[in-house]
Structures are given as structure tokens and as C-alpha cells.
């Protein structure tokens, strides 16, 4: 009887990268007789919770696709094993990317997917509002002015702002934190959220609400795209995937505008394959995960899926040549900051979302909101 390696994949099996992955798995099985890989696809909404629940009930999957932000929490609870990268392997990743999987000096996952953010703008609306359609805003103030112009002069709103109670709100806000020289947690693991930079960022976030679509609190990323596609908002910040989905609009994409107290930045998110402890096939799972994510295989997978390339390899130039809109995203990689690495990610997210919503709804002052959130975050570091 073959031993089963239970692998949880988020999403569905229709992606163009899946056949590639299947091939690799088949190959791996051939090399490792006595083991059989069983891939389960779980919809995004429950995917990570499911793996975690299985693990905490003592029945972990062998390897699962997890947001890298959860790795520290999983590690702290002794649910996953470190992936023990060699220096050589580490060197293939850009530093910010490596940062997303490193805690207590160890790496806890193998990056599988990755994104940076950039600003999309609607050239037609810019024109209609009397702005130069080819010049995207470079700073927050410019962005605000452009949005205001669109809001005032066209039927549309200037900006797409997300503030719903979903993870995307915090993600959006982190872009402002990172372009204003802020941080949530420092390298020593201390909460440094309560800083003037962050207060400034949050205040600006709230200010953007004035020129954004009505009711930002009802919006997450997924709902903004239709608005942008319909020409109802002039700009929004999102990842590279929008490039292929935004339709019927004359758009451009540029780096995220920079805040008054900082420089270029972006939130850098990775998802990783994590190897769970206690499945009985940890070793094989790790070997499989490494196989899937080695530079060559990973690149093939990314090209098929249309993901942002993790590693700077020759193919990247081809990609960029074929589609220059990648530029803003790829350029942002070195400036990227990770998702805050904490032991209670959802707690963190709730606290920050609440601060953002409070300011967007005009219920609390930014400094107060930041202070409260910072206090709550102490519990999660």
C-alpha cells in the first residue's frame, strides 16, 4: 500500500500551471516509489483555515499552500517544520521575498506565488478631467489632486478605496505605510506601529475617501475592479493580475505614489508551500515542495499561470518585453515590505482594519486609531 502525501492547493484545477505541476508530481512519484501524491483543491475562502484546522486536529496535510503571513503563527504552534534552505537556495530569492518566510532565523515555507502592487489609472478619465493622461501621479498629493479633479469634473469617482472587513483592506493600507517610511513590526519583533509616519498614512487614507467611490467600507479589491472596468473610478492600487482582467478601459499602470515622509514602496505578499509536522511523510513532502519550487520549475509554473516571477532570471526580460505593463510590478520588488509577521495574523488584520474603517467612516482621529491599534497589536507579536 502506497503512502499518501496529502497536498492542499488553493483555488481550482483550471489554472494553466496545474498540468505542469501534475507532470512534476508524476515525475516525483516515479522517483519515489511507495508514495502517492493526492492533491486537493480547496476554494480560496476556506483553504488556509482548512489546512490549519486539519493540522490542529492532529491530522495535518503533508504539504499545503499557505499565505506566508501565517507561517510564524504555524511555527509558533509547532505545526510546521522549517524548510531548511541552503545558502544557495536562499540566494535565488530577493531579500524582501525571503523576508516573508523567515522567522527566528529559519525559513518556514517555499514561496509559490508572489505579488507587488502598483497604481492603475484610467487615461480617458484623466483626459476628461483635464489631466495629462500619460502622467500618473507620483506623490500622494498628486494622487489626491488627480482624484479630486476626476471626481469634480466627470461622472466618475477619483479613486477606488478598499475598507471592507477583509484582508485586502489591511493590504491596501500597508502600501501607504510602506511608501511613507512606516512599519508595523521591526526586525526585533517589536511593534512600531504607533509612528507619525503611520498616522500620516492613515490620515491620508481617510482623506482619499473624500474622492473615492461612495461607501469604501463595502469594498474589497475584487469589487473595485468592476468599477475600474466600467470607468467608474479613475485610479486604484492593485496587483499584476488586473492587467489581464481590466477590460474596455484605456489604462496605464505606475508605481504607487510616494508619501511625504517616505520613498517608493509596496506591500509584497507571498504564498508558500508549507510542510506540516506530523503527517509522517514530512521528508518526502519537503522534497516534493522543493522540486515544485526550484527556480526552473517555479518559473515555468509562473509563466503558465501569468504570475509575477519570483526570481530574477533571464526569462523575466522576455516577459517584460512581451508586456511592458509588468514593469511597475517588477521594479517594485526591491522596495517591497512584507506582510507583518505575527503570531495572530487575523487579530492583527482585525485591529488594523478597524483603525482604517474608523478613519474612513470619520469616527476616530487617525492618531487615536493608530494608538489603539498599536496597543492591540502588542498581543499578537
Amino acid at each position, binding site marked *: 500500500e502506497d503512502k499518501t502525501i496529502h497536498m492542499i492547493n488553493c483555488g481550482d484545477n483550471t489554472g494553466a500551471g496545474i498540468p505542469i505541476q501534475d507532470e512534476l508530481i508524476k515525475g516525483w512519484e516515479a522517483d519515489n516509489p511507495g508514495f502517492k501524491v493526492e492533491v486537493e483543491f480547496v476554494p480560496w475562502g476556506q483553504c488556509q*483555515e482548512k489546512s*490549519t*484546522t486539519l*493540522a*490542529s*486536529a*492532529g491530522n495535518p496535510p503533508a504539504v499545503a499552500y499557505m499565505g506566508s503571513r501565517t507561517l510564524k*503563527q*504555524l511555527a509558533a*504552534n*509547532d*505545526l510546521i517544520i522549517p524548510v531548511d534552505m541552503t545558502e544557495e537556495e536562499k540566494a535565488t530569492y530577493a531579500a524582501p521575498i525571503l523576508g516573508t518566510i523567515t522567522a527566528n532565523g529559519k525559513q518556514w515555507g517555499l514561496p509559490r506565488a508572489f505579488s507587488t502592487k502598483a497604481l492603475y489609472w484610467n487615461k480617458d478619465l484623466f483626459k476628461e478631467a483635464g489631466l495629462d493622461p500619460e502622467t500618473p501621479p507620483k506623490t500622494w498629493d498628486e494622487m489626491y489632486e488627480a482624484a479630486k479633479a476626476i471626481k469634480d469634473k466627470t461622472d466618475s469617482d477619483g479613486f477606488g478605496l478598499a*475598507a*471592507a*472587513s*477583509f484582508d485586502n483592506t489591511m493590504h491596501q493600507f500597508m502600501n501607504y505605510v510602506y511608501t511613507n517610511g512606516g512599519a508595523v513590526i521591526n526586525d526585533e519583533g517589536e511593534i512600531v506601529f504607533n509612528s507619525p509616519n503611520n498616522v500620516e498614512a492613515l490620515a491620508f487614507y481617510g482623506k482619499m475617501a473624500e474622492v473615492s*467611490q*461612495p*461607501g*469604501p*467600507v*463595502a*469594498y474589497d479589491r475584487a*469589487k473595485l475592479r*468592476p*468599477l475600474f472596468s*466600467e470607468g*467608474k473610478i479613475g485610479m486604484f492600487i492593485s496587483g499584476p493580475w488586473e492587467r489581464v482582467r481590466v477590460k474596455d478601459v484605456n489604462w496605464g499602470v505606475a508605481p504607487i505614489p510616494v508619501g511625504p515622509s517616505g520613498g517608493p514602496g509596496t506591500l509584497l505578499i507571498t504564498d508558500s508551500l508549507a510542510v506540516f509536522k506530523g503527517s509522517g511523510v514530512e521528508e518526502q513532502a519537503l522534497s516534493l515542495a522543493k522540486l515544485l519550487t526550484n527556480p526552473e520549475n517555479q518559473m515555468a509554473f509562473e509563466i503558465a499561470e501569468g504570475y509575477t516571477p519570483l526570481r530574477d532570471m533571464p526569462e523575466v526580460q522576455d516577459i517584460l518585453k512581451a508586456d511592458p505593463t509588468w514593469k511597475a510590478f517588477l521594479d517594485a520588488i526591491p522596495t517591497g515590505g512584507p506582510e507583518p509577521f505575527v503570531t*495572530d495574523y*487575523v*487579530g492583527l488584520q*482585525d485591529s488594523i*482594519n*478597524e483603525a482604517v*474603517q*474608523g478613519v474612513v*467612516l470619520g*469616527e476616530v482621529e487617525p492618531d487615536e486609531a493608530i494608538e489603539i491599534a498599536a496597543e492591540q497589536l502588542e498581543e499578537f507579536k
Partner: protein
Amino acid sequence: MAHTAKQKDYFPFLLLVPATLVMVAVVAYPLFETFRLSFTNTSMSPNFEYVGLENYEKIMSRRFPEVIARTFYWMGLSVGLKMLIGMLGAVLLNAMVPGRTLFRILVMPPWVIPIAIGVFIWGWMYNGQFGMISGVAQRIGILSGPFEFLAYKNSAFMSTIVTDVWIGVPMVTIYLLASMQSISRDLFEAAWVDGASRFYRFRRITLPLIVPSIATMALLSAIATFNSFDIIWILTEGGPRGATTTMIIDTYKTAISRFKYGEGAARTVMIVLFLGSFMLVYFMLLSRLARRSPNNAA
């Protein structure tokens, strides 16, 4: 009952065996486990320690009282609306007008549709830009621009309630309708002979006679509403800023989203206590009511 043979006394218990087995396995035992968990710091990892009342202290120090108050407010409003709309619906469906059979069938879909699916649809409808409600309201001039129902504390609070009401109303309607139909027609004829108007008949006969049914239904839907999870979770995840965080949502967030099983269990225990005392109070009120008016409805 008076079946003489004494040795048969165990029989009723025998009858209860299957149901009890299921309940013990699926409810009682897990509930007991929950109780045990509530004194531990169980989290993601399978290892845990007993921490005494720490979890309960944590609950109290947080915003829990606010959540409790909100829960009951949410529940009260939702149940109230369900009863009101259900009653209205029942009255209308009780009218002997052509097409009533069809109408009676048409009330049911929200009940038979899987809750999650219904909520997805509502989520779509609440969208300010392309949802039906804001769209129609703009069309007929109630709203001047798109309105995001889930974006503001009050409107999100009300929106979750409306969806909950939508899901709960068919059952209430049909139940009250059934209860109205069980009132003897004679009573209405007698009142009519005495010159009572339709409204008067409703107020003086129908209403008092279905009070017991209303009470029963109110309790049932209060419990269902209290436990209403999917609706809020799918629509708002308890936001904005906690405006729709009820005890269940709070518990789920703690236990399932944040993997703090111990704390979540403590919250569950609190829920059980609250619901338990709520039901107790309710039943006491009800039996007092019943004692005041022995109702020997035909």
C-alpha cells in the same frame, strides 16, 4: 398512561434511545468538550494547558458586554421584524382572494434555498453600484447616487437584519397562517353577524387567539436568529468596525479564524448560559401569561 403491566416502564426510554444517541454524540459530548476546552489555552497546536478562568477573565475585559448588547439588539430587531412581516404576510395570504394558493407557494423559496446561496445573492443586491436595491432606488428617485448598504455601521447592521428576516420570514408566515386557519370559522361568522369589521375581527379574535403561536414562533426564531452565522459572516464578517459582530460571530472569529479554541470555548459557554437563561425567562413569562388566560381555543 395506564398500561398496567409494570415491567414495561422502561419502554419510553427505549423509544428515546436513537434520538439520545445522536444527540449525545453530536451535541452533548462536543458540548462537554467545549466546556473542558474553555479552561485551557488550546490553540492551533495539539498541546494545551489548563489555565483556570483566564479565558473568562479575558472575555470580560474585552468588549464583550458591547457584543452581548449588540447581539440582543440585533436579535430583537430581527425577530421583531420577522414576526411583524410574517404576521402581515400571513394575514394577506389568509385572505380568500383568487390566486392565494399560488401566493402561498411563492413565499417559500427563501426557506428552501441553501442559506449561503441566498446570502450571496443579497450581497450582490446590496452593492451600491450594480446591485438591485440601490439601482432601483436611484431609478425611482429615492437615492441620488449609489449607496453602499454594507459600508456604514447602521446600514450594514440593518442590511444583515433584512437578509436574516428574509430567510426567516417564510417559516413564520406559514406557521402563523396555519395557526390562523385553525381558528374556527364560526367565530368570525359570529363576529360578522354582530357587525364587527374585518379589522375589528382581526384585532379582537384572530390576534388574541394566535398569541400562543406567536410566542412559540418568536422563541424558535429568536434561537435561530441568535445562531444566525452564515448571513453576517458572508456579508460583513462582523464589520464595519464590529457593527455586526454578534456573539456567534465573535466566537467563530476567536475560535476558528484566530484558532484560539480555548477562548472560543469560553465564549461558547457564555452563549449557552445566555441562551439558557433567555429561554428560562421566556418560558417563565409564557407560563405566567398562560396562567392568566387559560386558553381553551377550539
